[in-house]
């Protein structure tokens, strides 16, 4: 039971990731594929942010007033891990960039073939 409580967050992200992976591979609609890609990226972002969490009264990684003026030594256990948050800020930016380019390409496909279904586009190309 302790094992399940300690690890179930990872399993949730794995399920989300598999949903996104399935959507990317099995769906024929291009917009649904893009939504699947976004779900995949969100699963990875949630995974990293959950790695940053510390039990036992840790707050956001922003220094409080007392710590800022050096009245006592900074307690590492009192703050969440800032590194995964920073890395996921970068990952969110990259995911927005890929989403934008993917949607632009989808719009171009629709303008040229007047459909977003993959099999119809393949038929039109042949």
């Amino acid at each position, binding site marked *: 039971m302790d094992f399940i409580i300690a690890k179930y967050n990872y399993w949730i992200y794995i399920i989300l990731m598999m949903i996104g992976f399935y959507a990317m591979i099995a769906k024929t609609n291009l917009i649904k594929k893009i939504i699947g890609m976004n779900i995949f990226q969100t699963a990875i972002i949630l995974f990293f942010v959950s790695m940053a969490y510390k039990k036992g009264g840790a707050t956001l990684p*922003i*220094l409080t007033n007392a710590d800022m003026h050096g009245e006592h030594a900074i307690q590492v256990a009192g703050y969440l891990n800032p590194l995964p948050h920073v890395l996921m800020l970068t990952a969110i930016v990259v995911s927005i*960039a890929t989403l934008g380019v993917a949607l632009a*390409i989808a719009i171009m496909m629709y303008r040229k073939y007047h459909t977003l279904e993959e099999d119809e586009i393949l038929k039109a190309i042949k």
Partner: protein
Amino acid sequence: MGAFLIYGTIDMPDWGDPNSPPSVHVSPRYIKKTEEETATPNMVTSVLADYRGYDTLGETTVIFTAGMACILLLRRRKEAGKAGQ
């Protein structure tokens, strides 16, 4: 593939464990020194803009490239559009 990943979680640290590897090795240094070295109370800001400034500079390049790609793809080409269609 999902089952393989779930098998991998057996060795992962527990949720919220303060002594898990990601919160033991690098981040204590950032938490302790961020006020002394950057005078910024927000650690996320200080790591993003001071310690990883080059990373953020590259990130702006990514955004610029994506924006240029969107503009180039979505721009209506007047002459080419009339001739092509």
